[in-house]
């Protein structure tokens, strides 16, 4: 058994920022448990730029963004255990047990006053889509291809179809093009892309790669290796319109059809999971319903910008520090946040009205809106009502609720965010 004040599970952007913040807030014994052989998480394979504009005020690549944080660890006494996989978390207030395995140390139980869950997310695989046809080689998630190309230096194929217009898919369209592949089309089931607008412009439009909205892959062809796919437009119920079916020859199908927070550990620990975010339910400190267990980054909800992950993880790190030092509020009074009329989810899901800082609520909408209002209310009180030129499911929004406002909210009410059109 190894004892720590704080165990951070995951050494990606979330885990790093949380651990560093906790150390900065005075937590003395911290360990970061990371399954890869380096810190940095998924950033290591995201070699494109676009990271850090908010946080560092400059445009960095993924590895550069990660290295800024990795460097900071040198001046701390945070322990880092690499190549170490956590296989179990057993919540027990003040003395949680985290079991991890590694080649170097074998099976180790860590006992921690507080735990920060920062396991990130994973990509949705083909099986979940249930596409008809054969099961050849040549079908993989965009992220797997990204690792092959950017880390291992290998190409999966030369003629590429991408299903799903998530950011990784868009980024890989450009990346494969730079490495000499022909990206034939990006198909998106929904009538809008879930990726960032800038990626549609600079990853697709710049290279004349067609983006077909309301279109999907309906059949896979090829016995041993992928030989082609049949794509078709879909109707408003997302059912394929067979008359539009079209065969496209390709040797690679990349899937970029969504990310799922990696919450197996959270689930088996007994944490309550939000059905929409697929992450734990947390308060404004990113503390779960189990005191002393925090969650941040993509394990909590999928972010589109790493800068936001960093910010959120610092909140969790500070929250954990407060808890460890015994400064946390022992009699929290919670009310829930609730998204209606187009707001799919809000994080945090509940707010302690005795909090001493302003609270930023992050949310996502379920469809594209132009010139709509974001209205925030609590009971009869309208907290804010701001016009937005554009709201899209691919872009996370936020509203701030001031401490002096929420401290007086009715304890039996809830904070509601909604979209008002027109």
């Amino acid at each position, binding site marked *: 058994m190894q004892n720590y004040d704080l165990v951070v599970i995951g050494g990606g952007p979330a885990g790093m920022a949380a651990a560093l913040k906790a150390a900065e807030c005075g937590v003395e014994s911290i360990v970061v448990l990371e399954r890869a052989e380096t810190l940095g998480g998924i950033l290591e394979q995201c070699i494109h730029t676009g990271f850090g504009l908010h946080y560092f005020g400059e445009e960095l690549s993924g590895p550069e963004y990660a290295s800024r944080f990795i460097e900071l660890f040198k001046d701390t006494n945070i322990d880092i255990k690499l190549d170490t996989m956590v296989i179990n978390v057993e919540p027990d207030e003040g003395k949680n047990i985290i079991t991890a395995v590694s080649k170097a140390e*074998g099976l180790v139980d860590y006992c921690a006053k507080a735990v920060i869950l920062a396991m990130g997310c994973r990509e949705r695989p083909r099986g979940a889509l249930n596409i*008809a046809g*054969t099961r050849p080689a040549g079908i*993989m998630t965009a992220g*797997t291809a990204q690792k092959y190309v950017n880390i291992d230096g*290998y190409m999966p194929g030369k003629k590429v179809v991408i299903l799903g217009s998530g950011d990784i898919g868009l980024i890989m369209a450009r990346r494969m093009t730079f*490495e000499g592949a022909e990206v034939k089309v990006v198909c998106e089931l929904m009538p809008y892309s879930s990726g960032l607008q800038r990626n549609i412009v600079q990853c697709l439009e710049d290279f004349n790669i067609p983006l077909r909205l309301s279109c999907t892959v309906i059949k896979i062809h090829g016995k041993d290796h992928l030989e082609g796919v049949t794509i078709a437009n879909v109707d408003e119920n997302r059912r394929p319109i067979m008359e539009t079916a079209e065969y496209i020859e390709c040797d690679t199908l990349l899937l970029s059809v969504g990310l799922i927070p990696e919450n197996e550990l959270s689930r088996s620990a007994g944490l309550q999971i939000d059905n929409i975010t697929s992450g734990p339910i947390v308060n404004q400190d990113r503390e779960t319903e189990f005191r002393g267990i925090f969650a941040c980054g993509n394990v909590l909800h999928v972010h589109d910008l790493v800068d936001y992950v960093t910010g959120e993880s610092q909140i969790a790190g500070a929250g954990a520090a407060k808890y460890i030092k015994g400064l946390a509020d022992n009699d929290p009074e919670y009310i829930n946040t609730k998204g209606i009329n187009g707001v799919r989810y809000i994080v945090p899901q509940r707010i302690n009205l005795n909090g001493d800082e302003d609270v930023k609520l992050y949310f996502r909408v379920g469809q594209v809106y132009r010139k709509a209002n974001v209205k925030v209310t609590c009971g009869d009180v309208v907290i804010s009502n701001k016009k937005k030129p554009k709201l899209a499911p691919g872009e996370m929004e936020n509203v701030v609720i001031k401490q002096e406002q929420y401290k007086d909210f009715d304890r039996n009410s809830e904070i509601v965010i909604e979209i008002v059109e027109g």
Partner: protein
Amino acid sequence: MVYDVAIVGAGVIGSLIARELSKFNLKTVLVEKCNDVAQGTTKANSAIVHAGYDAIPGTLKAKLNVEGSHMMSSVCDDLSVPYKKTGSLVVAFSKEQMKTLEELLERGRKNRVPQLEIIGKERLLEIEPNVNKDAYGALFAPTAAIVCPYELCIAATENAVSNGVELVRNFEVKSIDFENGEFTLNSDKDSIKAKYVINAAGVFADTLAGMIGDNSFSITPRKGEYVLLDKSMAGVVSRVIFQCPTKMGKGSLITPTVDNNVLIGPTSVDVEDKDDLATTDEGTSFVQKQVALSVPEFRIRNIITSFSGLRAHSNTDDFVIGQSEANPHFINVAGIESPGLSAAPAIAKYVEKILLSLIGEQEIKADFDPLREKPVRFREMSPAERREIIKKNPAYGRIICRCETVTEGEIIDAIKAPAGARDVDGVKRRTRSGMGRCQGGFCGSKVVAIISRECGIPLEEITKFGGESTMLIGRTK
């Protein structure tokens, strides 16, 4: 070199026959056209050990099903393959169907199936609370079980190879010559000589028999589509749930798997192409609708994957097992469709007897070992066992597949095993790496790298399942 026996086809039938023959001082070769064993019907079927009430009394199917079902648990024990005696239920939804159950019960008794009984609605809902409340009753067969068919095949091959059988992969028999009492099996590149040939070629058994002029039967590939559901669905049923057969067909089944997933299916459609393993939208939605009749509350969520398999349906409607009329040294083991898996251990014994009747009784080798050691399964170990095994070999301390908790050590074991894995799917079937909810998204590239390192094959030559199924085309630069 001339082998005594060449078994063509390393599915569950060929592998179990090979294992039986490995007891003797015979030079036996197991010939497989794919890069791994268990690549045909064996890898995609219902994974059920039927009790034996279904087959018509007096047929080989009936005889060998009941015998095989009885033998299965000890064979699985010897080979360290998971086997769970879950029992099965055939559910009736009308008075008329209850009559059909009576007929099945009667047939079962004639086939000497033990412990069969018809149970009423109350008892049915008590033991399977998620079954449709409109059910009238069910035929309960407590001796039915579930196994993992490809694991059984892999384990049987391993055991056979450990006892001296040779496995030749990537050898597709294209023609057969017979001269001076010896067969020559020819592929495009090579040939293998043997005195006796056992035809366990699955859906291709008629093609193989045709090569020696035996056209006494024909095999139609009958496709069955399945949907596999995530472990979070586990517990929805605890037994194999069949629907009462009607004029419209046998219906679909829902069953737990030995790995705690839930399997639903199959469809039943005759196809022309013996390589046609494509799934269809019609198939998957048919299966889902059909299963909803048995378990209505059950919403199909958390689909991990769908797949299809081909049953080797013979025009004789029964197993075709015996010496070929065209050449008595050529033994057909064909038309092994359901209850083929259930019958498999008995089929192997039956074929052994036929062979011994031709070559004379053989002594069992002194060093024959019927047991196959259980591979390390990190996910099933206690913390103390885990500590111990990592101390012995640190490779068990690196988890490669996080969904199924598979370690690097287990993957290396799977590659180094007798008749070990040579490709990504081979590692997956032996270790479950890549079988979880992320379907290899995280571990896929790591497995490719480990195979490359352990087998000394460049990354771009590693395949998903042999042939042209390479994962990568070459370096970016």
